[in-house]
């Protein structure tokens, strides 16, 4: 922590936390698709699977299933606990680490989830639009 007073945080509800992660209007998770149809998260300038550079940035569907999760009870100072963290297997075939909005029920491995916007905080305390996943409760499994 710096000893100097913190600069006032700049908060912009329309600005993505990072331009390679989400778009805001409309909200979408971003990915990379290469000429061989490898789809990965987030947007990059090369395909991490085949290292091709003829790639395009694509909006991901933002739906998938919960691969695993944990309820976190201890975190560094300034982070409110508990919170749910999980790995989500997206329908496109890639896996994303994200906070999970579980609601009142403990989620289960395999639960269907969908992405929604939330606020992320950068190291300099500025904020922007990030992502999390909510468990789809009304889905039949």
């Amino acid at each position, binding site marked *: 922590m710096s000893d100097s007073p913190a600069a006032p945080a700049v908060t912009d509800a329309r600005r993505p*936390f*990072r331009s390679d*992660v989400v778009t805001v209007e409309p909200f979408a998770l971003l990915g990379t698709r290469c000429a061989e149809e*490898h789809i*990965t*998260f*987030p947007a990059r300038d090369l395909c*991490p*699977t085949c290292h091709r550079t003829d790639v395009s940035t694509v909006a991901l569907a933002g739906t998938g299933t919960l*691969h*695993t*999760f*944990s*309820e*976190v*009870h*201890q*975190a*560094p*100072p300034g*982070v409110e606990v508990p*919170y749910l*963290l*999980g*790995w989500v*297997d*997206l329908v496109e*075939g*890639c*896996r994303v*680490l*994200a*906070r999970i909005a579980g609601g009142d029920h403990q989620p289960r*491995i395999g639960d269907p989830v969908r992405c929604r916007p939330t606020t*992320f*905080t*950068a*190291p300099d305390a500025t904020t922007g639009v*990030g992502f999390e996943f909510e468990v789809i409760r009304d889905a039949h499994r």
Partner: protein
Amino acid sequence: MTLPPAHVAGAGMIRFGKYPVDVTLERLAVGAARAAISDAGAELRHIDALYVGHVFGGPVAGQRIAVQLGLDGLPVSNHENYCASGATAIREAWVALAAGLHDVVLVIGVEKMTDRVAGGVRPDPSDLDAAVGLVMAAGHAMSARRYMHDHGVTREAIAAVAVKNHAHSVHNPFAQYQRPVRLEEVLAARTIADPLGLLDCSPISDGAAALVMCTPAGLRRLGLSGATPRILGCGLVSGGVQDGSRPLNDEDVSRRAGEAAWQLTGIGPSDVDIVEMHDCFTIAEIVRLEGLGLVPVGEGAHWTEQGHTALGGKLPVNASGGLLSRGHPVGATGVAQACELTWQLRGTAGGRQVEGAHTGLAYCKGGTVSGTDGGSVTTLVMQS
């Protein structure tokens, strides 16, 4: 490709634990270094260079330590690979000795965490995973839940790693904790990241460990004859980008680190008869042993429950007590593992001695990078 081995002429540690503010990083390092130099029967004038592994020590920590030791003026390098920093320093020292650059070098792994780290270690603040809220404990907790799901393993079987390693630590005077814990204590401990509790996690620790490493010419400089434990080599790999097609506990990074070690040393998994494993969390010991090919996939928890990885078992793992009990001053851990293997291979490990230990493997894994299966992994192979 194999390179000439490095001889370990001396090994020294200070007891890991939580030290007051006035016991500085430099003091910790000096304590371990003097123990290693004394163990080697060496003097400061014998040492050609200093290699220091640390994470939170700040700029030129190694040079600050050199001044306190009386080694100012020498080539000093600082090595950061998160929890594999100490082992990475050993690897670089081994390469320098093999290349003929130096004949006697001092390697120190050191960390002062208690006044610098609170609430657990986490990724670099610029990493996407940090914004999401990843702490290391949560990553391993998610690994544990998936492992239990995939292999039909109980929570108790994972907790058994903590029971085993704490039982070993009773015999290690350098361990932060030196008392046995019961399974019920592990299961009832405060939750850190569900399903893992406090006793599934290595502690935040201060500490230092050091080695004096030599070429054959260096051994002669020190007046040493007779057998010393040797570092045959040290593999180093980094995490690969994961596309989501592999199981979460696939441990490809551990498999590749094992391959690196086998290729560098000519040793194979079946030759290993003692392991110092980076058990930063209970589940990590299990999945990493499997990734290395030392234990069949899905069998690691059962092996622990059946005593196969305990002292007296067919593959003793963490006779030292591991990170769970020895403590985990992150930059010091890899060197502490090498100290333990040195004592085991000399046959001087006392109540925790593995009878007939001839070939040892020490594994460290350091850090996370968003979208990959890890930061850095080292695989150090030593032989008597």
